[in-house]
């Protein structure tokens, strides 16, 4: 639903059906809504059977990368004698994204159930939900849900009376965007600085505590109970008939200069134009959309025309100059200084860089300084080439993709809105002394 608004008639409510219902937060209310039926079913199946259904459903990671979930799970080999771990990535820090927050606030038991099924499917007895420290309400709700689930015998050493062990623990982060990167998340959980690790080894080989580990996003895991209850065929029906690669429903967080910001759930392939103008109410009075970032601030910026042509799925966004990412839709209208906002995005990445890799530590800082100089009216035409050159050196050269993510809005902004940059440079102030680097 378009929380905090009433659901729109064109939404497809699967994951967000119970947002806003106070009763759904507690265990009794959740059971009345069909909670834990899928877990009971899952525990009577073999892990391989669960993995096969999830694979067949076409479910792909909802955190940003879009990796097929069933395939990821199949990398874990149950019975190899090692402890396995499931990490649920609830570090939601991508600017523009706040869907996992609503899932945890309103339906915390759906995530406990998703984690328990996921853990069982990969042969893990322990699942950790890593929640960013700022999400105090989500933390309270998730802690309370776990407590209820333990007290009811759903979790523990005899999960739902099956004799199987499933633990789900909540772990609180402490303020670091980079901990949403899967290997940084594992380091943080182990009690280290949140520096990403070099891959390989991949987490499925040596992850958390050096053991085979799977990391899934909140929205990915909460989709699993629905798939087990209704079947893979049911899940596959949500999508464009001509694109079987994207299936299911997706939650989008909408923010920025738009009439009705909030969370919306639509099937894969939904027309982005209808989404922006119909579901979300279109631009503010007297304004027009200028630029749209559909998948969190790390994905390329779209022009209004590109956005209006996009079907909302992994392939549809790629065909229109961007990526689905996390589904965090940021709308910027014609009343904004777009270059200032790109500079602000760069500052975000400079602040959040873990500083391990030179290209990222230096690149994010210099990108920010140059952009802020342009915004302040001290830019030169040379700066634009320098920005692109720095961006090239920041892409594909570092341990994780934070560096690439900083270069992306700059490169796409320069490619699609170069006039905005040039207009600021033309207004250049006259200086008696050479301009100082900020």
């Amino acid at each position: 639903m378009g929380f905090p608004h009433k659901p729109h008639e064109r939404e497809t409510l699967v994951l967000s059906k119970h947002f806003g219902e106070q009763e759904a937060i507690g265990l009794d209310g959740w059971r009345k809504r069909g909670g834990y039926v899928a877990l009971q079913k899952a525990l009577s199946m073999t892990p391989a059977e669960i993995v096969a259904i999830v694979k067949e459903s076409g479910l792909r990671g909802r955190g940003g990368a879009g990796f097929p979930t069933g395939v990821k799970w199949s990398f874990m080999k149950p019975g190899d004698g090692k402890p396995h771990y499931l990490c649920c990535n609830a570090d939601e820090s991508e600017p523009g994204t706040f869907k996992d927050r609503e899932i945890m606030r309103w339906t915390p038991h759906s995530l406990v159930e998703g984690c328990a099924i996921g853990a069982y499917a990969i042969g893990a007895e322990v699942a950790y939900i890593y929640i960013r420290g700022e999400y105090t309400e989500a933390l309270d709700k998730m802690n309370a849900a776990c407590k209820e689930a333990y007290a009811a015998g759903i979790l523990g050493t005899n999960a739902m009376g099956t004799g199987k062990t499933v633990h789900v623990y909540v772990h609180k982060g402490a303020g670091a965007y980079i901990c949403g990167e899967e290997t940084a998340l594992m380091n943080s959980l182990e009690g280290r600085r949140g520096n990403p690790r070099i891959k390989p080894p991949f987490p499925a080989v040596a992850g958390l505590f050096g053991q085979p580990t799977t990391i899934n996003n909140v929205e990915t895991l909460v989709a699993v109970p629905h798939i087990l209850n209704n079947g893979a065929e049911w899940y596959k029906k949500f999508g464009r008939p001509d694109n079987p690669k994207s299936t299911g429903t997706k939650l989008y967080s909408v923010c920025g200069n738009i009439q009705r910001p909030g969370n919306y759930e639509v099937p894969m392939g939904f027309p982005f134009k209808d989404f922006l103008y119909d579901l979300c109410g279109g631009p503010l009075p007297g304004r027009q959309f200028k630029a749209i970032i559909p998948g969190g601030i790390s994905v390329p910026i779209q022009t209004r025309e590109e956005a209006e042509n996009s079907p909302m799925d992994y392939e549809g966004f790629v065909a229109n100059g961007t990526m689905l990412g996390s589904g965090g839709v940021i709308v910027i209208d014609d009343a904004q200084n777009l270059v200032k906002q790109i500079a602000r995005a760069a500052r975000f990445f400079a602040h959040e860089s873990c500083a391990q890799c030179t290209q990222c530590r230096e690149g994010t800082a210099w990108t920010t300084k140059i952009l802020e100089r342009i915004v302040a009216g001290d830019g030169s035409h040379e700066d634009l080439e320098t920005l692109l050159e720095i961006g090239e050196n920041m892409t594909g050269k570092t341990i994780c993709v934070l560096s690439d993510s900083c270069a992306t809005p700059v490169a796409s902004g320069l490619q699609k809105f170069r006039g905005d940059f040039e207009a600021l440079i033309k207004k250049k102030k006259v200086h008696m002394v050479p301009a100082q680097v900020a």
Partner: protein
Amino acid sequence: MSATRNEMGGERAPGDLAHALHETEPHVPVFTGARRAELDELLTRYPTKMAALLPALWIVQEERGWVSSDAMAEVAQVLELTPAYVKGVVSFYTMYHQHPVGRHFIQVCTTSPCNVCGAEDVVNAFLKHTGCEELGVTSGDGKYTVIEVECLGACGFATPVMVNEKFIESVTPETVPALLASLG
């Protein structure tokens, strides 16, 4: 701008003398009684003691309002780590305070999605009405510290503000005085 001394390694901002005395108070151990029991329960969740480091630091901050060097040494002893290691971890994460902050620690999100909705005006309203005037500085009465923070993950409810553990959505410059009055 957003990078303040609070976030950047424990250096106290100039003019922030309100807590100078507090900072030199002798350390009283945190992990005794109920807090020790809480940590012991947490330790059962992980295969290593080190994994309980972030939770242990949260306990310290809940108890004391900040994480002093002496507290880091205590955490190190309890978890069989070195104080230097603990400090290395503390300084990585922006939410642990390495020096005392105002009674109401106010974090205002100004990342792009909130920025296009006018978050900078909200920051200025806080600086004005708290009397802090400067980011990262604690007001003379020790009541407030205001900082800019990167994305709080509530972009649809611009501008979100965190006051200690409390999350407040849709703050505008006009609602700031009433919000401050409600904090007491």
